[in-house]
Structure formats: structure tokens, C-alpha cells
């Protein structure tokens, strides 16, 4: 009885998803033509080991194939992604972790990295390749998609991804990752600017000489 109920619920969600098809397409169209975007964000981490969520603020700069996240003010953590690698820099600790994207072994880690990319999708095909649309809900000015990773292995790490965008200007409003252990990582974006020129230095992976670089995936 319960499974029947769930099936009906999923069918309803999917049919609702179909209702917003035109808006999704519009949003993806904007993403495809997007040269860059940047903004501020508030990150809320709800961890299973903590009684209260942890809130931090930061900035993000995104262009095709690359992004830079700065978390904390001043930045405690910088995540720099370019086509070949992901670099996590801890300026206060003068430490960095390098993840060559072509050397990540298959498993939850690889899936997680793929999802990080996919959570900022640029086209619908890419999104549908990685996710199943579980639900679509509209509020006043935002449309929220609840996605589930198609990969079973990825689901062991991240159970759901939520992407919300403004329906008026099709800028990103929020993202959320729900982890398998019940933890959540929620980003609310503000001051989003589309297609503004970005300083190339923002994506420069060069590190000061006194930084210690490690490659955790290197055996």
C-alpha cells in the first residue's frame, strides 16, 4: 500500500515536472549561453554530528569549465576548479589539496566530484544523464528542482541535489546537497551577476611557495 502511495506521489511529481518543462528549457538556454556568473552565498551545513547547523558566507565565480569558491570572510577555504584539477586551498593553514580529475578512481569520490560539476548544469542533457528529476516546485519567483543521482554508487554519498533558480532572470537562487548520512549542505546565492567579465587571476592555480600541497588520491 505504501509503495503504491509512493509511486503515485512520484508520478505526480514527474507530471508536475512536466508542467515546468518550458521554464526548465528557458533556464538551460540561459545557462548554455552564459559566459560567466558570480555572486555571494551563504552556506549552511547541517551535519549529523552537530546539534546546530554551521553557517558561513562566501563568494563564487563561475565560467564554463572553471569555478572559484571562497568560503569564510576572510576566506578560510578556496575551491578552485579548472578543466584538469580541483584545488582546495586553506590559506590560513598554508595548505592545499590537489585532486587531478582524470586520476580519481571510480567510487563515491568520483561520483561526488561529478555531481559537484553537475549541480551547476549547463545543459539539460548533461543534467538528465546524471540525475532523475524527483520533483519540481514553484514559489513566487523561484522554481526548485529536486534531483536524484542516477548512479547507485553516487547515491551512497549524495542522496539528493536541489537546484532553485529565479524565474524572472533565470539566475541561480540556491543549491542543496543531501548526503547519505543525513547531512545537508545548502547554499543561498545573492547578488548574482551574469556575464560580467571575470579577472583571469581568479582562476589561477599558482600557489605561494610556502604552501604545502598534497594529493590525497595519489597512492
Amino acid at each position: 500500500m505504501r509503495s503504491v502511495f509512493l509511486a503515485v506521489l512520484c508520478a505526480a511529481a514527474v507530471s508536475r515536472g512536466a508542467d515546468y518543462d518550458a521554464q526548465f528549457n528557458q533556464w538551460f538556454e540561459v545557462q548554455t549561453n552564459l559566459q560567466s556568473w558570480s555572486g555571494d552565498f551563504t552556506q549552511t551545513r547541517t551535519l549529523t554530528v552537530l546539534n546546530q547547523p554551521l553557517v558561513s558566507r562566501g563568494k563564487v565565480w563561475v565560467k564554463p569549465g572553471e569555478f572559484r569558491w571562497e568560503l569564510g570572510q576572510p576566506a578560510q577555504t578556496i575551491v578552485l576548479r579548472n578543466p584538469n584539477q580541483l584545488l582546495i586551498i586553506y590559506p590560513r593553514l598554508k595548505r592545499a589539496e590537489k585532486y587531478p580529475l582524470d586520476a580519481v578512481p571510480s567510487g563515491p569520490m568520483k561520483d561526488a566530484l561529478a555531481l559537484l560539476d553537475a549541480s551547476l548544469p549547463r545543459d539539460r542533457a548533461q543534467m538528465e544523464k546524471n540525475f532523475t528529476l524527483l520533483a519540481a516546485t514553484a514559489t513566487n519567483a523561484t522554481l526548485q528542482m529536486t534531483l536524484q543521482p542516477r548512479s547507485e554508487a553516487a547515491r551512497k554519498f549524495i542522496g539528493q541535489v536541489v537546484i532553485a533558480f529565479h524565474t524572472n532572470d533565470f539566475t541561480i537562487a540556491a543549491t542543496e546537497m543531501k548526503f547519505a548520512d543525513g547531512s545537508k549542505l545548502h547554499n543561498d546565492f545573492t547578488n548574482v551577476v551574469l556575464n560580467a567579465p571575470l579577472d583571469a587571476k581568479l582562476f589561477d592555480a599558482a600557489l605561494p611557495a610556502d604552501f604545502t600541497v598534497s594529493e590525497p588520491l595519489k597512492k
Partner: protein
Amino acid sequence: VSSFLKRWWWVLLLVAVAAGFARLRFDVDVLDLLPPEEPTVQGLKLYQQHFTNARELVISLRATDADTAEKLSGELAKRLRRETNLVASVTWQPPWMEAPEQLGELLGWLWFNQPPADFAALTNHLAPENLKPQLDETRELLATSMSPMDLARRSFDPFNLLTMPALTSIGGMDMSAGNQGFAGADGKYHLLYVESAVDLSGYRECENFLKQIHTVVAELQGGAEKENWKNVTVHFTGRPVFVEEIATAMQKDMSHSVGATSMIIAILFWITHRRWKPMLWLLALLMIILGATLALGALILGHISVVALGFAAVLLGLAVDYAVVHYQEALAHPNLTVPEIRRAIAPSILWAAITTICAFLVLNFGGLPGLGQLGSLVAIGIALSALVMVMIYLPPLFPERRQPRPNQPPFRWWNFFIAPHEPPVAASNSSGKNSSRGAFVVTTLILLCAVGILLFRHPGLDRSGNALQPARGEAQATLDEMTVEMGLPPQPLWLIVPGRDEAVVFQRLQNAQGILDDAVSNRLIGKYLFPTALWPRGENQVSNRATAAILGEKAPLLRGALADAGFNTNAMLLSEQMVHTWAQAGASKNLIWPTNQVSGWLLKRFVARAPDEVLVMGLVYPATNKVDAAKLSTLSNELARGHTFLSGWELLGYATLQRVESKMWLVVLPLVLLVLLSLWFAFRRATEILLGLAVLGLSGVSLLAVMALAGWKWNLMNLMAMPLILGTGVDYTIFIQLALRRHGGDCALVRRSVGRALMLCGGTAVAGFGSLAMSSNPGMASLGQVCAVGIGANALISIFLLPAWWSRRLGGNAPKTCVTAAHGAQPAFYRGAAWKLGLFCAKVFPAVLLKKIAATLADLYWLTNRRQCETVVQNLLPLFAGDKTAAEKAARTAHRNFAAKLVDLWRVEGGEEIRNWLTTDGELDIIRNARKRGRGALFITLHLGNWEHGGQLLTQLGIRLTILSQVEPDDGLTDLRKAARARYGVDTLIIGDDGFAFVEVIKKLQAGADMAVSLDRPPDRGGVPVKFFGKDFEASLAAAELARASGCALIGVTIVRRPDGFAVKVLPEFVYDRKNLGSREARAELTQQILRAFEPEIRKDIEQWYQFTPIWPREK
């Protein structure tokens, strides 16, 4: 008493067989085949004994995509876990992913093993005043870190207790490893480790367990989700599968090879004899022999190795020979009773069996215990086969002949080792020159082809251990697939360090590290992995106990600090376990190990603990993918001196081969000696020994050529084929060459008789070994192939080529049974060299002394050559009306007399003139009167007394005699004697088979010559039946024929030794009507008359009648 004893021997044997069956255990561990003292073997044994879980089944699952593989692996694990009576546990992902908190025990224990200063620092780290800053830092990290590793770790390790050096060595604990050890790189390949809930010590238990697991898997695959299981393959490996596969293969090998060999034996036997009863009885006895051999083997040797079970096919091939030879003898001699046949055949079977037993026992010197056991089993089986076939095979087949004759003398045990003399078989003219030429053409072709092939290609030497590894069944194929999918080195080298306790092992680990560091710097190895950091340090644990007790009380404090910092109880799970471990460690009195499931899972990968021994395993990676086995072997030996064992299949193969090579001389040397001794005892003639060696040589070259063509290599196992091939080759060459002697070089006859038997024997041996080629063990299969080809070559060359070679080398002077008997039976002194020695002695030593020595030697000969002496007894038996005792007495004296006669002859041939003739004038007048007619005189004599002195007597009478003689068995001897006779005025005419020589004799007689011929031995052919001492006798017509052709005088003469001289007896001239001699009956009558006239002379001096070859025709 004898039958009582006989019965008790059989009862004893039955008891031994029953006891053996009760003790029978099979050993499926191929490593038990190898020398136990070899370090690589010790290492591999320790690895298999301690690091391959005897109760762990590994299931591999391959799906078309990673998700399906992951999902179905989980489902399979879930389904198997429901079978609680069958499965103790199923692990399908790293255990810490299912119970991460359990890692706390291992981590706490690792801290406990740290140097005391580091461990003591923890008390400061966890001091109350430091907890808040520590947790604040953790919160900040959890809020801002983007590192998945940090986020995952610090969530459960808020006090940052995992930062310690030992952890860097533990693979698989970080998230990056994911499903490492459980899934392949693409995620489509998954592994499940299933621990059995039932005992899997025996192969039957393994078989049942696997059957039930297969059923469960099949149910799941065919259940509600069967669509998901389409295109999903499931395979099984692990020790239970290996044990089940090896045992099943062993059963299959046994049944297939025994079945195939038995079938071929039956077919060959049927083709040869076309009789059901002997064939079925033979097969039944063979099966009994196999079972009894297995039981006796178990009784004597203990566990029977799986590889040694290959003995069955080998034994079948050899055992059948004894039955076939026995049966053929019974068919060939329908007048003989079974005991008589047994008496005739047993010595050859027993000596052949003893030679073969020796050849197989020599395998025990080869350095491979498994092959030694194979040799021992075959040896036991052959002894049993010889006994069973000699005693049991014939009686049921010939019930009317099973009882001995009433007057048959009883057989003693030694009779079975001393063969009676076989009467010669008349030669026929069927040997053709065309077949001889053909044989030489074939020989040349084989040689050219073989040498041609070997010039361009030759069989190499497989230095790997592949021959020892089990065949690639599902277990091995799955293991290989696992190795590839998991990215493991394909041929890892294991380093096993055993010791009585942890401290000893640690010391050895450190010593080994020093050696391995040098090996790395010398680039002999690329790297090595030792879990040194994870090894318990007794002294650290003792020092850390007090600190551990303090830390073990910190749980409430840590819980409070976490709560104050906003953490909930989830954050304390790991720390709680660590603190609990410290509390236990603080209270401990002895060295401790972690015990929970996750710790056990991790530690058993490289640690094994037995009641009186602990072991640790490391991995060594060669510098390149080409292993320098020689240098690694040296490294292995160096490490072994420190009780550290470096091992791996590659290294094992090299080390074992080295050992086998070094011990090969211990096998080859006795074998070569055995071969030469066998050939010498059989032939005592250089030419035949060389021909025997030539057979072995050509067979060896042919085998090498076949191996080169087929791409076979010598390996650890088939190197041991060499002694077997040599042994059978010698047997065949002896059988054939002795048969050629017996049959006067008649190749066709030899092929029809012995050749046919050898074809059957060789065919069954080839079938036996050939069936081993189907063995699941590659080494045993290669042994079977090589033996089949080698023995096949031996048989074919011996049967079809050797007779031609023999005829070419010896055919011209092949001894024939005409006036003299077959020379195959002649004693050793009928050789040129021995004769010269006799002549020399006769010149040097006084006659009295020499005759004493000769008489002693004759006695010795009588005792040691009973087979030859028995012939003399049989020849004299009719003269004593069947009184065996009297005949034996006379025969023995005859041997002594013959020795004295030889001395006399050597003295005469050495130039001494005889003066002490005891003659009467009247008798000599008979000679003079007969000669006066001028038509020649033919002096007829017997092998009585010193008949050869007649030449000198006639010379002294002024008569020049020509002796008609066959060729002596040795060319040198013929010439030597001819020259000696010439010195005292006697001519020699060698007749042989040449018809023209006979014409020459007639011409000389017609011209008035004086000639001598002996008449008391049956000729090869053309004899006539007469009565001699009242018994049928095949007499030579030579005298009557010559009389008819020339009209010569026929004078009978005997010369016997008396104490005071040589008594000459001239019989009255034999008068005949030449015209009447035109009919064969008349010539036979004249011959009868002559022999009858000699009978009284022989009776007077029976003990000087020297008949060493059978003279009476065989009974029909």
C-alpha cells in the same frame, strides 16, 4: 608347510591392504610435492597455511554497469546472510563502511603501540583545558573545509585522534579508496567474501558447501529480479573452490586415465588373442592391484599426493606386461603345466620387475618428494603386479593345467629367480633382405629428420613453476580475473616472517628490512611493503599501560566537552571506542591485539596467529616486469637465513628446478649404471650392448624432435621421464636381442613372437602414459606426453629397426643350431679373449693346479647358473630313466669334467703333444683299413670326452684331418681355434649355411680326404626322427648324406679321459650300401645305426658327455 606359509603370506598381504585402506588419506596440496627444506617452498606453504582462509569463499560478480554490479552484490550478500546454517558472514564492502565506529578499537590499539612519548602526549592533547580549543577548531573546519576527506574524518573524529604516523600505512581506510578490495576500477566488477559456517576441512565438505551456495545464487538469479541478473556473471574462487576442483580433477584423472588405459588394454588384448575370459580376468586383477597398491602406499607412505596418483595409469601400462607374457607362454606351450610355466617365466618377470622397481625408486633421489612418492607407488605396484600375475593370473584360465605333474620336483623359492634354460627354436628363412634395407632407410630418415628439426628448433626448459600449479579451472581463472580487476601485481612475491612471538617477528622484520633496503638500492626489487608500523611492540605496550589506564577514564570528560561544543553523541562513537580500548589496554597484563570484526578483517590480510606461532606477510615488487629469478633466489636464500621467506610461483619454479638439476645426477647416474649393468648381464657382448645404446640414442633424438615440433618444453615434472624412458628402452632392447639370438636372427619370427608381445606391452604403456596427458595437473600431463612418446619410440625402434641392425652386425656370424647348439646359451668362456686367457693359463700354470681351479669354477658355475645347468640335467635324464637325482649328480660331475677337458684342450692348442693315448692296435687298424680304399674317411664323433684330441691322434698316425665346424660365437675365437688346429696339423672347414661348402666337403672326401663331424646334437633343420636312448631324437643326416654323395668310410671314434691317459675307442666301421642310401628312410636308418652304436660308449662315460644345449625335441 609350504602351502601353509603361502596362505599366510596372502593373509598378511590382505591384512596390510586393509590397514592401508584404513589409513588412506589424499593430499591435494601440490606444495607437498616439493622439497620442504627449500625456502621458497616453506614461504609458499606458510602463505597457503596461514594467509588463505580455508573457510573463505570469494564470489565475483560482473555486470554491464557499475550500478547494477553494486546493487546486485548487495542483494546477493543480503540473500546469503539469510543462510545462517551455511554462511557465517558475508563481506561485500569494506567492513568499516557498515560499522565505522568499530575502527575505534584498531585506532586505539595503534595508539597503544606508539612510542611512549607520543602516547603520553595524548594525555596533554586530551587535557580538559585543551578540549574546547580543539573542538572549536573542528567546528571551524567542518564549517569551511571543502575537503571530503576532512569533512568525513573530522565529523567522527572531533578530537583529531587519527593523526598519527602509523595510519599512513593503512590502505583502504580513507574515502578515496572507496570499495578498494571489493570493486574493480570501473565498478562493474564486485567481490563478496563469504565465510562458511560449516567445517570445510575435507573436500567432500567443500563440495557440499559449494553446491548449496550455487543453489542459493541460482535461486536469486532465477527469482523475482531475474531480469536484473541477465548478462550478469557470477564466479567462485578461494580455497574451498580450489580444494573441490583439485579433488574433483583428481577423481576425474583417476577415472579417465584408468578407464582409458583399461579400455586400450582390453582392445589390444582382444585384437591379439580374441578371448573374453583372459581379458576380463586381466582387467579385474589390474583393478585389484591398483586398489591394493593405493592401500599399501598409504600404509607405507602415509598421505598420498594428488600428483602421485598418476601412478595408476603408469602401473596399468607396466603390470599388464607380466600377464601378457605369462599368457602367451601358456598358449605357446600347451603341454606345460601352470607351475612349469610359472617356473619358466617367473625369473624373467621377477628380474624385469626388479629392474623396473629400481628405476622407479631412483625417482626418490630427484629432489621432488611428490615424484619420489609416484616412483615408490609404482614400485610397490610393480612388486604386487609381479606377484599377482605370476601366482594368480593363469590358474583360473587353465584349470586343467593348474596342478603340477606327479613326478615334478618341488620348486624352491630361488627357482623363481633362476630361469631354466629354454630350448632353442629352429630358425627359418623368412628374414628378408628387403625389410632389412627398408629398416636402414627408415633409420636414416628418422635420424636425418630428427637432427634436421633439432638444428632449427629444440625443446626449451620451462624454468617457471607452471608445471606444479593446478590447472586453470574456474577457481584459478577467477583469481586471475580478480588480480587484473583489482590492479594487483600479477606475480607478487610474498615475504613471510614467522616467529614464536611478536618480539621475535619484529626483530626478524627489521633484519629483513635491512636486506630489502639493499635490494631496492641495487634495483633488484622495486619496492616492498611491510606492515611494520602496524606490528605490536611489546615494550611500547608495557610502557604505555599506565597512560592507557589514564586515557581510558576520559570518556565522561570527552562526552561533556562535545556536548558543550554543540556536538551530539554521533561525534563520540569513534572516540568512545578508542577510549574503551585504552581502558582495556591499561588493565591488560600481556601483549594485546584488537579483536572486533573490522580489526580482524584488516589484520588477517597480513597477520596470522597460531597458538605457538605468529606470522606477518609483506609484499615485494620486482624492479621490472621481468623477474631475475637467479638473483631473487639468492635474495631468498639470504633472507631465509634470517627466517624470512621470500616466495612466489615464479621464484618457486626456478628454485625447485635448480634443486632438481643439482640432484639430477643422483637419478641419472644410477640409471645409467642400471642400464649398462642390465645390458651387460643380458648380452656380455659389446656389439649388442652398443646396439642397445643405439636404440636408446635414436629414441632420445626422436623424442627431442617430437617435443620440438609439438612445442613441448622440459619442466620440473617431465625431466623425471628420462629414467622411465631409459628403463623401458633397456627392457625392450634386451627382449628383442635375446629373441634374435634364440631364433637365430630370424627378424620376422622375432617380430611375430616377442615383437608382438612387445607391441602389446608398449601399446599399453603408451596408453597408460598417454592418458596422463589428460591430467588436470599440467606437470603430470607433460610427464605423460613425454613418457608416451619416449616409450612409443623405444618400442617401435626396438621391434622394427633393431632386428635389422642386429642382423647386419651379427647376422653373418649368428650362431645357428646345427652341429653345435645355439650360441645364445654358450658360456662366457666361449669368447676369443677368455679363450686366450685359458691358453695363457694352461701354459703358465701346472695342469693339476689349473684343473683344481677349473673344477672350483665349474662348481661355482653349477651353483650360480642353474638355468644353464638344468639343461644338462634334462639332457641326461633319459639315460637315467627319469631319475632326476642321478641325472643331477652326473650333470654336476660333467661340469667338473668339462672344466678339466677345457684345460686339456688349452694345453693341446697351446702346443703340448699328447703321448698317453690308451689304444689297442686292432682298433687303429680299423682306421687304416678303411683309409686304404681311398674314398675318404668320415670320422664320426660325439661331444664325449676329449673328442677334439682326435685331430692330434690322427696327425700322430700320419693322417691329416679336416674338421667340419660351425662358426664359433665369437669371430676371434673361430680364427684362434682354426690357427691352433693348424699348428698340430688339423684343417678346419667352416660350413655355416653355405650349400657350396657342403659340395666342397663331398669333393674332398671323394679325393680321399679325412674329415670329422659330430652327430649327437639336433640340426637346425633337415633332421630325421630316430631313437636315441629309446627317446625320440632329431638327428642330423650329415654323415649319411656325405656317405651317399662320396662313398666315404664312416668310422665312429670316441676319446675319453682316464686317470692314466686318453682312451681311444674306434667303433667297427659302419657298413652301408651306397645305392640304398638314395632314399631318406635308408639314410635315417644308417643314422639310427650309427647313434645306436655310440649309446654304450656314452653310457660308459655319461659324466664326460657334454651336452649344454637342449638335445631332445620339445614335447608336443
